[in-house]
């Protein structure tokens, strides 16, 4: 059958395939669709693999994995509550410190700074984002922790010791050190993305506000309102970095699965536990519990991202109705 197709006909078909715009568009469309779907599939596959790997641990512990606070590899009892607590609290506190700072940086860079200052400053902020986390960890051990131990913690326990947050022996290593180092690490991410978001707000918005007699401050507020969802996205990215950060945190947090209100006490995070214990985990149940920990981290990340999305949507809707 194929013999009936002559050479010239073949060439024509080929020409059609390669030079017809429609087909090119089609291939392009399908290809990009494939890429987009593959991300989706990857997430599902990761979730499934983790679920599969942690099956025996899930079967044995069930929900008590999330509520039990003993993590004992010898007795093979695994409860992740203090580790989940440490992860979420350290990341949230880091965000609380980093968000206003990075917003300040972003507003200054996008709205206020003269160009000769803005360029080098932006460069430095981006440089901060590129430093490997182990360097932050080393800096934490040798600079931040001694400083916390000798100055910050004695001061805090002296002035605010009546609060449960600032009690205990000042070792330097602990939740406070982890929170501070995380806030420094997420600051460049939030600020550089927020700066880009602020810049992408049309100039007309500012000019209109100024023309109506608004002050610089008032026009900035309007720009910030426009950039709200973008800034929230930047914050979520920062949160993602904080919650998954392993090396720098494990070097300063004290690595003890403990729920304590005091910021001076050691704590532990999920990513650190996995990194620390995975290599030497020999029993099946132990490995399974560590993978389940990864699954919990995965789910928490998804929940937080979903919440952020919802928040952005609801804000956008409000914004539209008030317009």
């Amino acid at each position: 059958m194929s013999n009936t197709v002559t050479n010239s006909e073949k060439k024509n078909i080929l020409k059609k395939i390669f030079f017809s715009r429609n087909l090119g568009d089609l291939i392009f469309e399908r290809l990009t669709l494939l890429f987009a779907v593959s991300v989706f599939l990857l997430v599902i596959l990761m979730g499934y693999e983790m679920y599969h790997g942690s099956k025996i641990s899930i079967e044995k512990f069930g929900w008590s994995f999330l509520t039990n606070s003993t993590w004992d590899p010898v007795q093979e009892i695994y409860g992740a509550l203090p580790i989940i607590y440490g992860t979420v609290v350290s990341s949230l506190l880091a965000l609380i410190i980093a968000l206003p700072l990075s917003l300040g940086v972003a507003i200054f860079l996008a709205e206020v700074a003269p160009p000769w200052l803005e360029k080098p400053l932006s460069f430095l902020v981006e440089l901060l984002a590129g430093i490997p986390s182990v360097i932050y960890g080393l800096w934490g051990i040798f600079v931040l922790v001694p400083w916390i131990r000798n100055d910050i913690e004695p001061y805090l326990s002296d002035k605010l010791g009546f609060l449960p947050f600032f009690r205990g022996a000042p070792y330097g290593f602990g939740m406070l050190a982890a929170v501070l180092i995380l806030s420094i690490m997420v600051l460049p991410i939030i600020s550089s993305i927020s700066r880009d978001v602020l810049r992408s707000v049309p100039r007309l918005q500012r000019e209109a506000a100024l023309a109506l007699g608004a002050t610089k401050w008032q026009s900035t507020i309007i720009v910030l309102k426009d950039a709200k969802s973008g800034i929230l996205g930047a914050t979520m990215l920062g949160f993602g970095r904080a919650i998954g950060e392993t090396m720098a945190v494990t070097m300063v947090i004290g690595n003890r699965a403990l729920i304590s209100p005091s910021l001076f006490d050691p704590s532990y995070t999920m990513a650190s536990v996995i990194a620390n214990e995975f290599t030497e985990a020999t029993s099946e149940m132990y490995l399974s519990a560590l993978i389940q920990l990864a699954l919990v981290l995965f789910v928490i990340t998804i929940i937080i991202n979903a919440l952020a999305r919802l928040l952005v949507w609801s804000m956008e809707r409000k914004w539209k109705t008030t317009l």
Partner: protein
Amino acid sequence: MKFRSIVSAIILILTVASVAHAQLQLNGAGATFPAVIYSKWFDEYKNATSVQFNYQAIGSGGGIKQVTEGTVDFGATDGPMSDQQLAEAKSKQGTDVLHIPTVMGAVVVCYNLPNVGKGLNLDGAILADIFLGKITKWNDATIKKINPKLNLPDKSIAVTHRSDGSGTSFIFTDYLFKVSKDWETKVGKGTSVNWPVGLGGKGNDGVAGLVKQTEGSIGYVELAYAVKNNILYANMKNKAGKFVEPTFQSVTVAAEGSSKDMPADLRVSITDASGKDSYPISGFTWLLVYKNMKDEAKANAMVKFLKWAMGKGQSFATDLYYAPLPKQVVKMCEKNIATITANGKKIK
């Protein structure tokens, strides 16, 4: 034309590949603690015989896993495989896994008491109570009693330990397990345990960093690490009641002391060893090899290498801060090495 060029390209690739393959290569993975001496050994051995060993220091757990799955030619571990793990490996690989001790390491108890300096004495019961959080002050009566000459401060003890799973922790907790009933029931032994008190540091350098920075702290690191970094460490009271300073010699002596009642498979802990001069917190690190290997060339190379490691290899140990095996143990290893077969045939 095209066909010919493709064929010639394939031939070229095959010849290159076969040239590369001519050099025998054995792959292994496992413990990080002996990685330094293993890479020295493999390097020296390659220069001498052109047999190449690839070793990946992925941790003992990983080593045991890969040996069980049969993805490597040999493994390495700091803690011996359990009976259950051995049975699993046998059912999957159809052959026994042998434990061959290669060198020894010791764990030293380091502390930071600037006004006390060198020469702190400790014993097992006190150490266990400190790490259980029962003894909390340096001038506790029990510590004072065995350190009559030292002026111990009224300072609280800051306990530090390893946060990552490690053979060092295994040896340390194995010792406390043997000397303290309380430790046995409350904590147990393992590469990671549920520490009752203290701060965790990642790796030897992490613990050493915690101890160096925190006055009044106590922790444990590998002997090699402590020697290299000039960290203060305590003399431990051994089973014979003598306070012994950790040195390569006192570690080797400890293995000598317990070699009499070692089981034939050499899966044995030598913590709290008998013998007048033996240091009590030490342990072997093992290579895991298959008793019957399917590839004859590899089996030959493995056996030759193991014999070399027991002989000339041991002379590299002290320079790299490991304790060499005592003669009795080397003999027992050689006996086990001789049982390795290739497809059921003995290896000459």
